[in-house]
């Protein structure tokens, strides 16, 4: 026969303070657990959402980032004429030769020492069609040939002088901010885009950093890669755009995940110890009660189950508490330097339903583990000894 749940509810109510303490403790663990994973999640999302499977990215052979890459004009014109480049609606190739530059900018409201290296991407006019999911939210796209730039959404949040109509100063010159854009939460949103031809004389760069183009046939990527990489005039590596940006996030994404697991697992062990202790104490205090239950004819298995349920219940309350604690950070934008590309990247905490669920499961596991040994002990108590 099962012990009714109301028994556990009532006994939990008997000890409101200690139950609350345990639940809050577990809640904090769950909050940190979800928060850390949400951070890693947001970072991954920022970089894995960057780029499309339908696009190819071309870098100089051996270069491992857009920053270290360089393509001369000859290579760019050979690439643009390749039959693997899809034509746009106007018949011109969907091909963008780009300059990837880093400029130091002071963050909004920070002292002058706190600079961040911001990506300035010089693009061709076609870039706005080539790169996917770009939406201009405010203003008009820069006109080629003018000193105009378009600023990514998260970049605009974090740096001064980035509103439409303002002038942003870098490279020793003022640039008119003519629009803001979003890119589905990708790292492009941390960048400033302008006309590549305008940037080159200012930054004294001959040629470009990289090139991005729409594949004429996305399924024929391997073929395009083989042909272009074999071309002796080019000396390039060809990547699928999405895969390339995902790889750029590998190191930092992995560090964040490892950190999340390390910190939360140590915390979890501490919390489980705490839960075990609380339950042990609860069991010890209720020895006569348990004996009565056993005398009444409840099977030891039911007693075990009952205590497990009670412990899991406290943990679940903690889990829900943790979720409530962590929910407000959802969407909060933070930033760090992605050392793989040496550039500032802004990303937000992304709490997904799956993360919330894993938080609750985590709490339940902590509670069950924490309750098992004390419950086991409670169930196996000799009646006589407990009653005495």
């Amino acid at each position, binding site marked *: 026969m099962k012990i009714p749940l109301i028994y556990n509810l009532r006994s939990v109510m008997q000890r409101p303070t200690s139950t609350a303490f345990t639940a809050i403790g577990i809640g904090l663990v769950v909050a940190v657990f979800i928060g850390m994973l949400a951070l890693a999640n947001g970072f991954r999302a920022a970089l894995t959402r960057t780029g499309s499977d339908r696009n190819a990215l071309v870098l*100089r052979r051996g270069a491992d980032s857009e920053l270290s890459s360089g393509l001369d004009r000859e290579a760019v014109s050979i690439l643009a004429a390749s039959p693997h480049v899809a034509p746009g609606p106007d018949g011109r190739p969907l091909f963008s030769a780009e300059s990837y530059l880093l400029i130091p900018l002071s963050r909004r409201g920070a002292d002058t020492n706190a600079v961040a290296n911001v990506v300035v991407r010089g693009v061709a006019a076609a870039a706005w069609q080539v790169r996917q999911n770009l939406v201009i939210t405010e203003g008009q796209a820069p006109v080629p040939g003018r000193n105009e730039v378009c600023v990514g959404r998260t970049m605009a949040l974090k740096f001064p002088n980035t509103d439409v109509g303002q002038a942003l100063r870098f490279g020793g010159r003022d640039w008119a901010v003519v629009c803001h854009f979003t890119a589905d939460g990708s790292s492009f949103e941390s960048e400033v885009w302008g006309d590549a031809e305008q940037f080159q004389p200012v930054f004294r760069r001959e040629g470009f950093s990289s090139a991005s183009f729409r594949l004429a046939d996305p399924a024929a990527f391997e073929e395009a890669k083989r042909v272009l990489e074999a071309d002796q005039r080019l000396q390039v590596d060809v990547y699928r755009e999405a895969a390339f940006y995902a790889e750029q996030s590998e190191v930092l994404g992995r560090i964040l995940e490892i950190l999340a697991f390390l910190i939360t697992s140590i915390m979890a062990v501490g919390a489980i110890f705490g839960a075990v202790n609380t339950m042990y104490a609860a069991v010890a205090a209720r020895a006569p009660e348990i004996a009565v239950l056993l005398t009444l004819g409840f099977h030891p298995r039911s007693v075990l189950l009952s205590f497990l349920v009670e412990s899991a219940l406290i943990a679940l309350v903690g889990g829900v508490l943790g979720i409530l604690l962590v929910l407000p950070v959802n969407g909060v934008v933070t930033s760090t330097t992605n050392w793989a590309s040496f550039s500032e990247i802004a990303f937000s905490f992304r709490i997904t339903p799956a993360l919330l669920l894993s938080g609750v499961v985590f709490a339940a596991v902590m509670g069950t583990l924490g309750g098992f040994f004390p419950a086991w002990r409670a169930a196996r108590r000799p009646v006589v000894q407990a009653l005495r």
Partner: protein
Amino acid sequence: MKYLHLVLANLGRHKRRTLLTIASVALALFLFASLRTVVTTLAAAAQFGSARRLVSTNATGIVFPLPLSYANKLQATPGVEAVSWANWFGGRYGDNKRFFAQFAVDPASYLEMYPEISLPEDQKQAFIRERSSAIIGRRLVDIFGWKLGQDVTIQGTIYPGDWTFTIRGIYTPTDAVINDDMMLFQHEYLEERTGRPGQAGWYVLRIDDGDQSASIAKGIDDQFRNSNAATKTGTEQAFNASFATMWGNVSLLMGTIGMAVVFAILLVTANAMMMSARERTREVAVLKTIGFTDRTLFGLVMVEAGLIAGIGAVLGLGGAKLLYKSTNFNAGGFLPGFDVTTSTLLIGAGVTLLLMLASGLVPAVRAARLPVVQALRRVE
């Protein structure tokens, strides 16, 4: 302390519970020490820098070079004692599982500029003499097992191709903030192979008077303001600090998590300690009956709480200190000089004291105030 055996007996009554409590205190403080050390290490890196060293970079941005012809002009600037320069190489070794930094430097002036990079005189001379030689940090020896005289091939990402260097020296930094996993090679070798002579990534200058750094820096920047590449000159400390700020909110994040961890585990632990004290109501009453004073009982409970917190603290804080010291941890080169500082240990000790008070005070007061008759009546 004639009651020590009584305290110990109390601790030993529920051995498992006591051990679990101590372990969770130890874990909390270990985690606290680790997270805070990330913060202090980043702060130390931002603070590092000799007051007499300035760094000149291209005003347009750190990734843009400066002409090598500036070296003579900088040397001639009043107040400047010595000039050296370096370039970021950005190479990959092997499968690139373990990243490390390579710099192309002007050997003689660079080593003279940074006495913190210490290596034997004969190795130093060999490095200065031989065009394709390199010196490496001690840690790279541990990681890759490289030896003096060995040829090492690095794939350039910025400067394409395979670059082979002969290791002629192994340095040990005298200041922990300096990375012990760098590779330095000759700037001339870089120029020779790329065929693009005359570019320096940045300049390092030593000035004769640290108090004049601001005016000397301004003088330098004014000198190059209207030339091809304007400079941005600042103290070495400001240069390092600008890298540290690139981590963004990492410090804040670590600090916040550290606090949450400590708070969560302390809450649970204090709770467990209070509960175990509550079970002993009858015992306390008995002790009172046989003549223990209120004050003694208060003390006994506090000492017990203090012992649990103290042992946990020694294990957690000491463990963190020893672990990072003995494994020479530096987070894959990202956090050189990772070491639990005295201030972290002191704050940890403060947290321990807080835990002792939080977990011991309520039961101790309760024990001291316990009305004997009522307590004894409640049992049976």
